[in-house]
């Protein structure tokens, strides 16, 4: 889009040269994600919240829980909606206004990973079938950009949901009332972990930072559940993967996901 500056070009050459030696710009191993710091309960007015730092990428996430009408064809299920937004203060290239295709994809991929894993048992969030259900609304705001927003937003969402409290509601004669001071834990069935990998040349790297993100040929985000199964995939970028690379990425996502899952669970408990 914008003209390539000399600096970007030099960075790109450096990244490619280092990868030939099996090294990355920030000294990580190819399959090593950046340091992940998760703080939960950072927004007390939200029913669940988290601030996640993945390297220098930072996301604030809040969960609001409120009663709502169910979707017409899904009267026996609660509502689960997960969004993502890049705030204008996060990146000089970000602008306020309606979301572009990148941001729409980000939000949909984060939502899909958690939804398809069945993390929250939505059937337990029904107050009155076809009439009233509990809605879980997860909103991610990216506050600082250093690449790989997919994983940062996914971790923030999962940690927020794990730490969230569901208020108790009573339904009678079409009226929903909230029971003050009474909460339950959300009905969690599994903890999904998203792992995004970039392909640069013939190298697969885990959790690309902004510089790597800018020069990768293709990327793939794979979400796995606690049983070590794959529940969502999204490929992106202007090049392809060989079938062998896809299998390799599946294995990396399961192995890397297991380590991150422990951190998410720990953060969700605190």
């Amino acid at each position: 889009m914008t003209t390539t500056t000399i600096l970007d070009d030099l960075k790109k050459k450096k990244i490619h040269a280092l990868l030939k030696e099996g090294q990355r710009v920030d000294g990580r191993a190819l399959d090593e994600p950046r340091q992940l710091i998760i703080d939960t309960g950072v927004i007390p007015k939200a029913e669940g919240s988290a601030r996640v730092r993945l390297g220098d990428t930072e996301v604030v996430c809040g969960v609001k829980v409120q009663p709502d009408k169910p979707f017409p064809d899904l009267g026996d299920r609660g509502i689960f909606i997960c969004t993502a937004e890049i705030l204008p203060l996060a990146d000089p290239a970000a602008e306020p206004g309606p979301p572009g295709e990148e941001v729409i994809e980000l939000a949909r991929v984060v939502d899909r990973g958690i939804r398809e894993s069945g993390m929250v048992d939505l059937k337990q969030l029904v107050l009155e079938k076809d009439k009233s259900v509990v809605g879980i609304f997860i909103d991610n705001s990216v506050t600082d950009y250093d690449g790989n927003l997919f994983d940062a937003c996914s971790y923030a969402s999962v940690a927020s949901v794990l730490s969230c409290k569901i208020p108790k509601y009573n339904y009678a004669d079409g009226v929903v009332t909230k029971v003050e001071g009474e909460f339950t834990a959300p009905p969690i069935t599994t903890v999904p972990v998203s792992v995004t990998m970039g392909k640069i040349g013939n190298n697969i790297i885990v959790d690309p930072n902004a510089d790597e993100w800018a020069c990768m040929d293709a990327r793939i985000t794979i979400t796995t559940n606690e049983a070590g199964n794959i529940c969502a995939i999204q490929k992106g970028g202007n090049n392809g993967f060989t079938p062998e690379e896809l299998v390799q990425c599946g294995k990396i996502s399961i192995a890397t996901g297991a380590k991150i899952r422990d951190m998410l669970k720990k953060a969700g408990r605190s």
Partner: protein
Amino acid sequence: MGVKKTDIVLLDDKGIRCDGRKINEPRRIMIKAGVLKNANGSAYIEFGENKILAGVFGPRDVHPKHLANTDRGILRCRYHMQPFSVGERKNPAPSRREIEISKVIKEALEPAVMLENFPRTVVDVFIEILQADGGSRCAALDAAAVALADAGIPMRDMVSACAAGKVADTIVLDINNEEDQEGQADMPVAYMPNLGKVTLIQLDGVLSPQEYEKCVNTALEGCKIVYEVQKKALQEKFFGDSQ
């Protein structure tokens, strides 16, 4: 057929699916190249109940100009569903789903198109879903790739797409609408058959690592079947029926 959703048998004990197909049998695929007069290239596809029209314009001047690239051309793609293409009327404004699909289709085609040959220009791909069945993004991609070739735009390879998925605990090829709604997993895949590269892969639904591998391979087999149909469509357009 007036059958209630819950009554559908997705896979019977003889291994026959709800629309009578075998496990690794795709739906009927028909592609016709060069169906529009004004577009530089075009194609019409019927993939099961999907009916999709794709038109390609370009390489041409970029508007707005600031989007132009000095060292290579750009590819733009619009996947759009007609309001009458689905059961309940669809709002004609592009939905978030359509914007995401437009993006993944663009990224699936881009590795094949030799955009470095056309700096400062754009190739526009417009896809209109006239009737949607399951797997419309794959069918749309198949038509778009044929339309690009029909427009004479230099390509490294064809792009062929087909989905696979998990239905009644079995990996099956080419998920239809009912199987998408009631099944356990759906994995659309696009593939450059000669270069051996997967340019689109998405998944929703749970698969074990073994099932994942099998699902990818099943989808690739489907892509190869689609590739033959795409080639035939182009042969018919340029050499008549003799081939």
